[in-house]
Structures are given as C-alpha cells and as structure tokens.
C-alpha cells in the first residue's frame, strides 16, 4: 500500500510539471501587453520599461520559467499584478467561498442523488423510477447558468414575502455579526506565518466559523445564501450520481448472492443496504471524483450569477485581465486538488472492494 502510494505520488510529478508548464505558457501567450493591461492605456514607454523590468518580464522565457518553478516549489506564487497583493493572500480570501460552495453542492447532490438512485433501482420500472430517470436526464442537460437564474427568479422574486424567500446574491446579509472564531476566543496570533493564515482561512468558512462560535444567526443566514447556488451547481452531479447509483444497483441486485440473501430470509432493507449498496459504491466513487472537477468549472458560472467572489470568478477575471500571478497560482491549486482527488478515489477502491489490491 505504502509502496503503491509512493509510486502514484511519483507518477503524478510529471503531470504536475506539465500543469505548471501549460499554465505558464498559457499565461505568457495571452495576447496583449501586461503593462498596458494593468497600468492603463496611457502608461508611457519609460514607465512600462520599469514595470517590465521589475516584474522580470524582460528575461528570456526559459529563465522566467525556471524562476517561476523555484518560487512555486517554495510556496511563493508572487504578487497579483492587478490587486498588488500577494497571491497567497488572495487564495486565503477567495478559496473559502468556493470550498463552501462546492462542498454544499456535492452534499446536495449526494443527499438527493443516492437515495433517488437506490429507490429507482429497487422499484425498477415503477413510476418513481421513470420520474427519477426523466429528472436525471433533464438535470444533466440544463445549463448551470440558466438554472441559477431561474432559481433566483422563483425563490427571490416570485416567492418574495413568503417563508420560502431566499437571497439572490452574496454570502451573508449586511448587518449580521460575523466575528471570526479567533477573535471570539481571544486567541493570540503570531504576526505572520502559516498559523494566522490558517486561522483566517477557517474564519472565512462562514458555516464552520458560525458553528465554532455558536453564532446561530450567522449560520442560518449563511445557509440561506448557500441554498440556491448549491442547488444550481449540484444539479448536474446529482443527476449523474442518481443515474450511476441506479445502474450500479441494478447490476448488483441481479446477482446470485442477492438471491441467496433473500432466500435466507433477510429483510429487504438489509439486502439492499448491506449486500447491494456497498458493492454498488465502487462506480459511484469514480463518478463523485469526476464530478468534483465539473463542480470547479461550474463554479465560475455559479459565482458569476450569485455574485460570489470565489476562485472561479477571480480566475475568470484574471485570465481576461492577464494577471499572470493569479492565473498560475489558482490553476496550479485546482490541478493539484484534481490529482489528489483522483488519488483518493483510487485508494478508496481497495477499501470498498477488498479484492482490489493496490500494488
């Protein structure tokens, strides 16, 4: 197992190197002059010269790549040209929004998708099965941005003045007290380094922070703001998961050992949950891993519609504004996240199916 892990981690190094190379190349070949894009059209040649020298953009491209690699390995992603802030700072500010969004979307898709899939497999060809599959087919076909706008229209406008009203944008309402946990707990923090960064990062995860500080008002408000974006973003994975669960369950339920379990007189619930579902989990984990990637892409659209300033949004803005630092840092973070997820999925196989040995 350890050997397998080591080999997998080593094998992902070329992929990570390729990712760094591709992001570096993409950031450099984006047409347009970064100086004029950042400092404005009126920047004089002298100002531009100094700007380019300061940012090291006048060095040969290979040398720039080597410098960049060295910085990334030291965990230094440089400064955002547009915000004049260290990129790590922006990561701390923006990542929590997207993490909260994608995890709640994943939660929605799992909590709805798996039960729907199991029920429609157990009650194969029933009305509920037909309806679920109809819904699943529509779910994978809807554009995320359209679904988001429609949800906002229904829940923020049509259901205004009803208890079902939900806010159409933002993360928390104005005026809700949202003191971070390290202030509430009166923690003393070192000036700089990893610890305060981590504290602030956690403090910006609204729901976790609300739970830590028992701030129920904030919790309720944050969840209210999350429902619409999470449902919009979670619909496609939900449909995929429902379909996958159903077909995997149908496969397993047709096996001989299920008939044996039934013949032993086990209750339906035990047969379905203990004998069938556990074996249907394998393909399900694969699809969950794959969905996480789609979630990040969908986050760009969801964040645009619901006015959330998360990773997807900032990355989109950075690409169009040629902000090299942000583009490189955020794509690397996302890609590393991807590689890790894939690794976790592969490892989970051997736990779910003991016959699979990772060597």
């Amino acid at each position, binding site marked *: 197992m350890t050997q397998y892990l080591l080999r997998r981690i080593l094998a992902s190094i070329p*992929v990570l190197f390729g990712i760094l190379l591709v992001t570096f190349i993409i950031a450099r070949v984006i047409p347009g002059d970064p100086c004029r894009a950042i400092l404005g059209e009126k920047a004089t040649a002298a100002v531009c010269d100094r700007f380019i020298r300061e940012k090291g953009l006048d060095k040969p491209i290979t040398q720039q790549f080597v410098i960049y690699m060295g910085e990334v390995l030291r965990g230094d992603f440089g400064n955002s040209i547009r915000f004049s802030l260290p990129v790590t700072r922006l990561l701390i500010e923006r990542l929590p929004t997207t993490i909260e969004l994608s995890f709640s979307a994943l939660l929605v898709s799992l909590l709805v998708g798996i039960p729907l899939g199991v029920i429609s497999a157990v009650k194969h060809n029933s009305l509920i099965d037909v309806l679920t599959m109809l819904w699943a087919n529509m779910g994978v076909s*809807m554009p995320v941005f359209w679904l988001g706008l429609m949800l906002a229209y229904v829940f923020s406008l049509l259901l205004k003045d009803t208890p079902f009203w939900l806010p159409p944008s933002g993360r928390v309402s104005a005026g809700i007290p949202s003191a971070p946990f390290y202030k509430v707990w009166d923690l003393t923090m070192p000036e700089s380094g990893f610890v305060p960064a981590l504290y602030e990062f956690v403090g910006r995860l609204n729901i976790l922070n609300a739970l830590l500080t028992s701030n129920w008002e904030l919790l309720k408000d944050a969840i209210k703001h999350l429902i619409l974006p999470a449902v919009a973003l979670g619909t496609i994975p939900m449909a995929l998961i429902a379909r996958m669960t159903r077909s995997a369950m149908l496969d397993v339920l047709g096996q001989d050992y299920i008939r044996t379990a039934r013949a032993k007189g086990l209750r339906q619930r035990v047969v379905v949950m203990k004998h069938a579902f556990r074996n249907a989990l394998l393909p399900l984990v694969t699809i969950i891993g794959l969905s996480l990637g789609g979630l990040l892409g969908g986050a760009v659209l969801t964040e645009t519609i619901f006015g959330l300033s998360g990773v997807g949004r900032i990355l989109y803005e950075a690409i169009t504004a040629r902000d090299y630092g942000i*583009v490189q840092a955020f794509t690397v973070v996302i890609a590393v996240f991807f590689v890790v997820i894939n690794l976790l999925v592969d490892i989970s196989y051997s736990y779910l199916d003991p016959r699979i040995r990772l060597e």
Partner: protein
Amino acid sequence: MTNAENKIATLDVEGISLQSVSLWQITWRRLFRRISAVIGMIVLGILILIALTAQWLAPYDPTIPMMDMNPPEPAKPRQDPCIHAFGCPKDQPQHIAGTDGNVRDQFSRLLYGARLSLMVGFSTVTFAIIIGTVLGAIAGYIGGWLDNIIMRFMDVLLAFPSLLLAIAIVTVLGPGLINALLAIGIVSIPSYARVVRASVLSVREMDYVSASRALGGDMTQILFRRILPNALTPLIVQGTLGIATAILDAAALSFLGLGAQPPTPEWGSMLGAERNQVFTAPHLVFLPGIAIALTVLAFNLLGDGLRDALDPRLAHIS
C-alpha cells in the same frame, strides 16, 4: 417490424442463420424500440428542420433592431410576448417570444439559434474526433515513448476543469465563436484519444491483424481497415454524448461573453446579454435556456439509446 422479429426469433430457435443481419440493422432496430431514444431522435429531427428552414420560418430578421420598422407603433425593447391567437390585440405586431433589449424579435433569434447550436455541436466533435483518433491510434499502435508522451499530455489536459481550460484557450486565441469552438474541440480531444487508444490496444496483437501485417499491409492500411473499425461504436456513443457537452460548454462561453458575439443569435449569448433582466423580463432568459436544455437533452437521450443498442452484452434483445 413484428414480422422481422418473428423471423429472427424462429431462426434463433433453429440455430441457423439464413439471412445475414448487419450490426447497423440490429442497432437501428434496437434503437427504435427505446422510447427515450425515439423521443431524442424526434426532437433532434425537429431541431434540424428548424435549423435548415430558419430563414423561412423566422418572421423577422434575427440581427437587425426593429426601431422604426413597424409604424405607427414602433416596437419597444423587452416587450412581453404577443401572440394574436392567445388574445393579444390585433393592432399590435405579433412577437411570439417578445422582443429583446435591442428590439429584435426573440422568436426569430431562437429559431436561428438552432442553426448555430447544431453547427457548434457537430463541428467541435468532428474536430475532436479526428485529432483524438489520430493521437489515440498513434499512441496505441506505435506505443513506447510516443505513447507515453501523448497520453501524459492528455492527462495534463484532463487535469484542468474543461470549462476553465476552454476559457484560458479562448483568451489566448481571442473571443469569438470560431475560437470558442476550437477551444471546446481541444478540451474534448483527450476523451476520444483514450477511447481510440483502448480499442487499438485491445486488437493490436490479434491474429487477424498479425495476418494482415504478414501479408504486407502497410501501417495506414492496417490501422484504418483492420483496427480502427473496432473503435467506431464507442466513438459514436462518445461523440453523440460529446455533442451535448460541447453545446453546453459553447453556451457557457458565449454566456460569459467569450463565444459568439452580438448580434449573433446564439442562445448562450442571448441569455448572457439579458441575465440582469431576469427579474423584469424573465422570458428573455427562460426561453433560450429551454432551447439549450432541449437540444442537449435530445443528444443525451440519443447517445444513451445508442450506447444500449450497440452494447453486445445486451444482444439478447434482438
């Protein structure tokens, strides 16, 4: 249909085949027995018909604002739908889906949009299949370091969320419909390359391929006549489902302003242009979205149907 079924059934019992049935005939027959696939084909047929006849069906020009075209009462921007048959006063010009922010007939734009979306789907997938097939075939057939380089590069492409990678590529190439198509095409190459490589690997060492090689067949001949036909069925399924994804991604790029530029009647950009009006003129957001969803749904249903129809494990059905 029933006659043919009976004939096959009796032949099966006797175990002798008197009449040869090709794979495509079987597939076709199985496809028609799935209601969802038939619905997909019908919707698709209607869409293709609309796309082909848009210039005759559309009551107005989809790109020209109608500021002063209907005197005495000029059309206003973002009018509600006005359908004479449903009680809209006869003296008002008929706009089945209302007008958009630039006083263009939304219904005409929706009809023309079908043309663009189908074109987007077919052209990106054709592009991706051609490049993906070449790369996958080379990687699988030649193997070695070439295989390693090609497939690792595909892994790198797959390591990015496809929409983000497409956004990055469009930014490099510059916004526009053609560049958006290229970007989506490039992003979807890896899945086809993988499919083709897997099929090539599975038959590369088979006897009939060795025989062909022994008979002096050159590489292209062996690849195209002996090996690649095996990749055809997975490619058809992947391609049909891929069209659905391509249409969604292209709409998303246009929605963000990176794909089709105004006044092109593209559903995604129509939606993007009016997205802030969702509370005041919801029909301008609702209808293009429905159009996208219907088109994508049709391809998804057809793709699923094809997958089942082409699956040899379900051979007992016919």
